[in-house]
């Protein structure tokens, strides 16, 4: 075919800035997705402050703190993996990403035990003990399960995203010159962290 002419501003060019901007825009939608839940939380907490307080005693502050530390650390490792990639150190970059994924798994395992403990105490919607709770405490747990559940889902997605980047670096599609994908995975992972930064005090640190 006869296309010798290509526009300089073609949509098929690789454009690192565009992909970063796209990622940020996507993060805004994620922020507002959780934002909706924070709105609901705000209303119910202001309606039932005491019940929220009581219900929060069922969570283990230290597990929460530990998980926070895990996530923050993983945030650092993923950020460093980008630095490593930019500096051309692929091996280090990949290792740092593996550490991040390990942290993600650790986080989920702890969450699994926390949720499991709630099940054992009959604190899940529909269970008898749960149904006997006052409205405010039930709302606390609805929100707790919904929000940490959705957050957990994001942890999983973020982990898969990082796996993709690892394979990209290995295959050579993500390189020190062309690292948008790794940057975007990093951005996504930080968002997961960012949301946890709020979830943690809102559920664990009510006093």
């Amino acid at each position: 075919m006869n296309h010798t002419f290509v526009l300089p501003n073609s949509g098929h060019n690789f454009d690192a800035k565009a992909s970063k901007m796209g990622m940020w825009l996507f993060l805004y939608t994620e922020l507002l997705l959780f934002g909706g839940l924070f709105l609901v939380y705000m209303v119910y907490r202001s309606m039932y402050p005491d019940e929220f307080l009581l219900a929060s005693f069922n969570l283990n502050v230290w597990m929460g703190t530990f998980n926070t530390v895990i996530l923050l650390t993983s945030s650092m490792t993923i950020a460093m993996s980008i630095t490593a990639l930019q500096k051309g150190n692929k091996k280090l970059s990949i290792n740092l990403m593996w550490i991040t994924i390990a942290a993600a798994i650790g986080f989920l395992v702890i969450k699994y035990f926390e949720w499991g403990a709630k099940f054992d105490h009959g604190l899940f919607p529909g269970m008898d003990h749960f149904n006997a709770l006052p409205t405010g405490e039930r709302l606390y747990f609805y929100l707790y399960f919904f929000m940490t559940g959705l957050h957990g889902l994001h942890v999983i997605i973020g982990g898969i995203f990082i796996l993709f980047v690892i394979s990209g670096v290995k295959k050579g599609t993500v390189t020190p010159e062309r690292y948008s994908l790794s940057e975007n995975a990093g951005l996504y992972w930080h968002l997961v962290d960012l949301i946890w930064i709020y979830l943690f005090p809102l559920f664990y640190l009510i006093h």
Partner: protein
Amino acid sequence: MTSETLPYTSYLKEKTGIMSWLFTLDHKRIGLMYLYGIVAFFLVGATLGLLMRFELLNPGKDLVDPHTYNQIFTLHGVIMIFLFIIPSIPAVFGNFFLPLLLGTDDVAFPKLNLLSFWLYVLGAFFALATLIFGDGPADTGWTFYAPYSVKTGTNVTMSVLAAFILGFSSILTGLNFIVTIHRLRTPKMGFNQMPLFAWSLYATSWIQLLATPVIGITLLMIVAERMFGIGLFDPSIGGDPILYQHMFWIYSHPAVYIMALPAMGIVSEILPTFSQRTIFGYKAIAYSSMAIAFIGYFVWGHHMFTSGMSGPAAYIFSILTFLVAIPTSIKVFNWVSTLYKGSIVIEVPLLFMLAFIFNFLIGGLTGLALGALAADVHLHDTYFVVGHFHYVMFGGTGFAFFGALHYWFPKMWGKMYNKTRAYIGFAILFVGFNILYFPMLILGIQGMPRRYYDYLPEFTFLNQVSTVGSWITVTGLIIIIVNLIVSGRNGKKATDNPWNGITLEWQTKSPPPLHNFDKMPTIPERGPYDYPNAKRG
């Protein structure tokens, strides 16, 4: 046009076979696929509308039982809102023409664009699957108000998931457009040299991006409530139904500007072309789009004046509602002034735009009556509201959609439609439309509530007028659609620039080649609508 004789392959012919369409990355083909899907769903939704009008011909039962009626208007609303009008102009004409107007060859993320389309298909599948799976389509109204939506046995979960998926598709389209506008404008085209349709899409995209997630999460909460008993909104197991309404309208009011702004962008394209002069008040129109998008976020409460909202909140929401009308009125005045000292050629697209202004005026001005607290207490959830939103959505956006279809028809298919039939179709549609919806405004003032299967006998006459109007409307629409299909197959060949327009899409061939431009497009020096032949003003 001299270039006509040169050999070139249009995007329609460049590759063939069904796969070259279904998995195309070309924005023009994706736009066309959206067009077929959207028009199909418009016809489905419209047929449901027609059924409702049949049912309402007389008090009592005419056609279906109350339960079916409720499912029909819900499906009608869901289809019309999520499958027709929200994607309509952005996904079809935005996709097809935004890159052309900006002088580039595609959107920023072509693959993401294809993904949006497939999500649209998936969402459509979910919406229709309710007909087969579960206990039938939802019967909640398109607003899915809790706690009824939690209690009813119909397949609300699936309808809601459809809306969720379609929302996701809409977000990705918006994201794509924002990045496209930021990154892919042709060199030297600043924001203030962009055509106004691009501006309106920019404003729209921001709404799609930032408002849609809120309804996404709200709908997920409804699903969680139905499936796991996460009772965030049903008072019998915990939550507060009024909060649901807040969350719903935080999205759904801005969403009405997702519907309206692109239509306004279309008007701003077409009026200068047929007046053969520059647009009046370019910046006022461009920035008022942004203003509408922004203020539009803060007025959602006007849907809840009778929900038991507090006095101060009602006060603030009402005043903000009135403020959002001002940028719209600025646009209307600028459009009318664009006709002033033009050299007007009357063609069907222009008529559609003038009809848009007329209908949208009725719709917008009735919106003011709804924004006033006292009047809304009487009018809320009556047929006045139904009249209002059909005037803005169908009379406004719908007319703009069909106008744009005629305006860009030669560019998209390289054929010209039959003008006589187009005139006739337009005239019948316009008359029918007003007979269909004007009586609803009166019915509302008289106090007929909406979502009523049956009504008091004193409302019979106006309902019958309205039903007759729906028949006239069908006739008009059928003429228009048949005319376009026939012309697309064997219409006269169109020139590259049949309307003598000067925005960039007219600088390439009809239909455009796969990569849109074979040479660098040139942008008019003094703004996108600066007609070289017109006198300096």
